C-alpha cells in the first residue's frame, strides 16, 4: 500500500511538471504556427486571437437513436482542422457514439437511426459518401490496442495492401515511415516479422496508430486510446498526438481530465447525449460558462 501511494504521488508530480512544460511550449508554438498557417490557408484572421478556420467536420442537429433510446440529442459542433478536439463527460453520455458517427462505424450496429448531418469538408458523410471511402479518410484508434494477429510489418502494410499497393519497396518505405512517425521504429525494427501480439501494450497502441497512418487519413479518431496503458506509454501517446496534429485532425475521447487539458485545443463536454459546452480547452478548464461543466471538471460528479 505504502509503495503504491508513493508511486502515485511521484507520478502526479511528473505529470504536473510535464503538463507545465507542454502547455508552455504549446502556447508559444501555437501562437506562431496557427497564425501563419491559417493566414495562408484562408486569409482570415481576426483580431481577438481567435483563428477562424474552415471546419474539418461540421455537424448539424445530429440525433441518434439506439432503438427507442435517444443517445445523441441535437448535436451541432464544428471540428477544426489540424487541431485536437477532446470529448469529455461521464460514462455512457454518448462520447463514443458521437465519435463513431464521424466515420460511420455505427453502421456496423443494428437498430441505429441517425438524423441530421455530418459533413466532412462540406460533404455529407451519410448522404453523399460511401462508408469505405470515408473510413480511409477518417481512421480510428480504439481503447484496447487491437493489432491483428499478424507480424508488425503486415499490420502496418495492411491498409496499403487492401488499397492495392503490392510493390515490396513501396510497402517497405511506408512501414518504415509510419513506424518512425509514431516513434517506435528504432525499438522494433529488428522484430518487424515477429507477431505484433508480442509487443507491450504501449507499443501495440502506437503500432495501431502507425497502421492507421499508413493509409494517409486526414482525421484520426481516438476512443480513450490511453485508458488501457501505463503512465509512461500514456505520455508517449499524448506527445505523439500533439505531433500528429500538425498533419492530421484529431478527435479524442478521454476520461482523463488532465489529458484533455494537456493536449487538446478545444473541448466538448457531453452529458446525457447532449453537448453542454464546447469551447477552447482553456476556457472550459479555466473559465467554464455552464455550472455542470464546472462541477464535472472540478470532479464533483462523473
Amino acid at each position, binding site marked *: 500500500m505504502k509503495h503504491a501511494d508513493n508511486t502515485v504521488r511521484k507520478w502526479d508530480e511528473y505529470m504536473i511538471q510535464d503538463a507545465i512544460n507542454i502547455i508552455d511550449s504549446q502556447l508559444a508554438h501555437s501562437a506562431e504556427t496557427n497564425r501563419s498557417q491559417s493566414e495562408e490557408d484562408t486569409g482570415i484572421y481576426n483580431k481577438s486571437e481567435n483563428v477562424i478556420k474552415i471546419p474539418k467536420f461540421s455537424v448539424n442537429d445530429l440525433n441518434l437513436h439506439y432503438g427507442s433510446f435517444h443517445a445523441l440529442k441535437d448535436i451541432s459542433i464544428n471540428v477544426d482542422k489540424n487541431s485536437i478536439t477532446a470529448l469529455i463527460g461521464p460514462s455512457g453520455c454518448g462520447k463514443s457514439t458521437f465519435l463513431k458517427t464521424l466515420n460511420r462505424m455505427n453502421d456496423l450496429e443494428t437498430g441505429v437511426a441517425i438524423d441530421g448531418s455530418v459533413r466532412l469538408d462540406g460533404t455529407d458523410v451519410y448522404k453523399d459518401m460511401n462508408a469505405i471511402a470515408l473510413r480511409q*479518410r477518417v481512421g480510428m484508434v*480504439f481503447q484496447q490496442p487491437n493489432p491483428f494477429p499478424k507480424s508488425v510489418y503486415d499490420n502496418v502494410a495492411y491498409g496499403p495492401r487492401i488499397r492495392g499497393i503490392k510493390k515490396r519497396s513501396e510497402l517497405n518505405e511506408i512501414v518504415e515511415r509510419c513506424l518512425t512517425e509514431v516513434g517506435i521504429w528504432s525499438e522494433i525494427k529488428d522484430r518487424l516479422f515477429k507477431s505484433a501480439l508480442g509487443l507491450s501494450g504501449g507499443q501495440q497502441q502506437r503500432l495501431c496508430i502507425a497502421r492507421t497512418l499508413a*493509409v494517409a487519413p486526414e482525421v484520426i479518431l481516438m476512443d480513450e486510446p490511453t485508458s488501457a496503458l501505463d503512465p509512461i506509454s500514456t505520455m508517449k501517446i499524448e506527445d505523439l498526438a500533439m505531433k500528429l496534429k500538425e498533419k492530421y485532425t484529431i478527435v479524442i475521447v478521454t476520461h482523463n481530465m488532465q489529458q484533455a487539458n494537456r493536449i487538446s485545443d478545444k473541448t466538448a463536454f457531453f452529458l446525457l447525449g447532449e453537448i453542454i459546452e464546447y469551447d477552447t480547452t482553456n476556457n472550459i478548464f479555466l473559465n467554464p460558462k455552464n455550472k455542470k461543466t464546472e462541477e464535472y471538471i472540478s470532479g464533483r460528479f462523473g
Partner: protein
Amino acid sequence: MQQNNSSKHSSGDMRIGMALAADRVMTGVFYLVAGFFLVLLFAFAGYIIIKGFAGAKLYMFAFAKGGIGNQFFNTVYLVFLALLISVPIGILSGVYMAEYAKPGRVTHFLRIAIETLSSLPSIVVGLFGYLVFIVLTHAQWNLFSGALAVSILSLPLISTTTEDALRSLPESYKKGSLGMGATLRQTIVTVLLPAAAPRIITGVILAAGRGFGEAAALLYTAGMSTDINWTVWNIASPTCALNPFRPGETLSLAIWGARTEALSADSAEIANLSSAVLMIMVLTFSILAHTLEGRIKKKMGDTK
C-alpha cells in the same frame, strides 16, 4: 487488504482452509479422470496394434490382392477427395453463417438443416449416396461417390467449426480492419480467416478422422472391391490408382468384409492387421494435426 476483524479471523481462516482442501480434492479427481482416459486410450490402441501385427504375415502388406496395401491407399485417397469437396464448401458456409447471415427465419432454418445433417446416421447417407450417385447416374461403385457421401458427413462439422472459430475472434479485429476502410470481404479473407485458421484446421482434422473410420456410408458407394494395377498411370483406366471413378474398398470396409464374409482362411488376421493400420493412421494424423495447429498458433503473425 485485511478487512476481517479479529473475531471473524479464525472462521475466515477455516473457510479458506476448506476451500483449499476442496480444491486439492477436485484437482485429484480431475487428474484421476484424465488418467483413466489416457490409460483407456493406450490400452485400447496398444491391444489393437499389437494383436494386429502379431498375426500379420509379410504378404498381407502387399499392394495387391491378398494384402491390404490397396485398401490403405484407397482410404487415404478417398479422404483426400472428400476433403477437397467439403473443405471449401464447409468454410464458405461457415463464413456465411458467421458473417453474412442476418438473424431471421431463413438463417434459423439453415441452422436446423446443418444440425440435422451433422446427426444423420451414416448408413442413411450411404443409401442416399447409393440412390443418387450410383443408381441415378447408372455408375458402378466408385471412390468419388464414396467421397461425396463422406463429404455430406463432414460438411456440417467443418461449417460449424468455421462459424464458431470466426465468432470467437475478438470483435476488435473486425472493427480495426473495417475502421481502416477495408470491405467486409477483405476483412474476412485477410484478417478473420487467418486468425481463425488454427481452429478451422482442427475441425478439418476431426472431419478427416471421421472419413478414415467411415464404413456404412461407403458400403453402397465406394464399394467392397478394389483392383489396382500399379503399372497403369492412365487416369481414365479402371485399374489406375488415381482414377476416382473406380471401385475402392477402404480399410474399414475391409475389416467389415473380412469379419462378416470370411472368404479366406486368414480373414481374421487381415481384419486385425487392418484395424492396427487404421489405428496407427488415425493416431499419426491426430498427433501431426495437433503439432501443426500448435505451430500455427505459436507462429501466428510471424511471417516472412
